[in-house]
């Protein structure tokens, strides 16, 4: 049953999603793209759409994936109502752990913020989060996103390097970078 599987996956994503949206992508990739509920390209497109719309990437991706996944999993669920149900389920489940953890553990964390347990755990998580974000970037550098013929690959690499330079060295907003890349794609491909 696709909905139960989605709930289980998003529960894990919500419970282990340390380090913000980008680090969460590594988990989403494994839980959602891994079983084949959405394609690699769809996953990247969702990230792009999330960047261009307001709101946290974790919510945006849960809503989009929840809508698409039931229809992709079975022809039985192609009616949009099943998609809307999926969106609701995934979005609620992904925030559920943070709801309970924030309400029930915030007192504990505030009180023990200087303790070896809390300090040590978060010091140890920091380099792991960097690795998680790096793995998301590595996982997305594939033929689904960079093409499979040499012309596409070369153009894609140029777009990637150009976009990286703009984001990293200037203050131009990432949304503009995506818009430019889309316009470039329209003329080059």
């Amino acid at each position, binding site marked *: 049953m696709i909905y139960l599987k989605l709930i289980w996956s998003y529960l894990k994503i919500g419970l282990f999603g340390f380090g913000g949206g980008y680090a969460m992508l590594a988990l989403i990739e494994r839980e959602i793209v891994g079983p084949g509920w959405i394609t690699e390209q769809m996953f990247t497109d969702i990230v792009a759409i999330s960047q261009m719309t307001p*709101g946290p990437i974790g919510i945006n991706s849960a809503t989009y994936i929840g809508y698409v996944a039931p229809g992709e999993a079975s022809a039985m669920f192609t009616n949009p109502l099943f998609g809307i149900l999926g969106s609701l389920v995934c979005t609620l489940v992904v925030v559920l752990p943070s709801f309970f953890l924030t309400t029930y553990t915030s007192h504990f964390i505030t009180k023990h913020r200087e303790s070896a347990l809390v300090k040590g755990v978060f010091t140890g998580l920091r380099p792991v989060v960097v690795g998680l974000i790096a793995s998301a970037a590595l996982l997305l550098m594939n033929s689904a996103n960079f093409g499979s013929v040499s012309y596409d690959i070369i153009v894609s690499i140029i777009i990637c390097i150009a976009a990286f330079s703009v984001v990293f060295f200037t203050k131009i907003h990432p949304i503009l970078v995506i818009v430019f890349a889309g316009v470039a794609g329209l003329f080059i491909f």
Partner: protein
Amino acid sequence: MMNNIFFQLFITFFKIGAFTFGGGWAMISIIEKEIVDKHHWLAKDEFLDQLAVAQSLPGILAVNISVAVGDRLRGMKGSICAALGTILPSFMIILTIAIFLTPDLIKNNEILSKIFKGIRPAVVALIIAPVITSAKAAKIGWKTAVIPIVVALLIWSKLPVVSNPILYIVLGGIGGYLWYRRQLERTRELQGKEVEK
């Protein structure tokens, strides 16, 4: 109705959810302005305490902070109102997009498929950039760089078991705790020796 604190919480976070692009970090400064400066719901240091907790917990940062603020002000009901406000705008916008911009449409429409072919490598670039900024923020040096590199490569490998990100989150937490405890013991030993002298 308009002066009701629950409604105020909902509307405040709804506005934040509807108008901030760029995820959690971009939202924080705006949340702070609304909560601390405009509504005076929390004092600045109280807000920073809540932020520290929200950051250290798993999940979506913006949701965590809205739950924390709502809970602080009006308990469970307050946190539900604040969290719904944060979630609802994204949910409605993305649902609308999902209904109209289907994967099949992107694939079969020539113009859209070209646009997305250009966008995809740029999205990868947008994820490479935070690798470097987060490494700097975590003060990763040449010695500690081995942790994120090994983690990234093993997850990327897609091998069974070792490619599971959850494994490294658990190991990182346990490892960090053990390392920190050892550091504390060492400093205590050193202090003990100094006292003996």
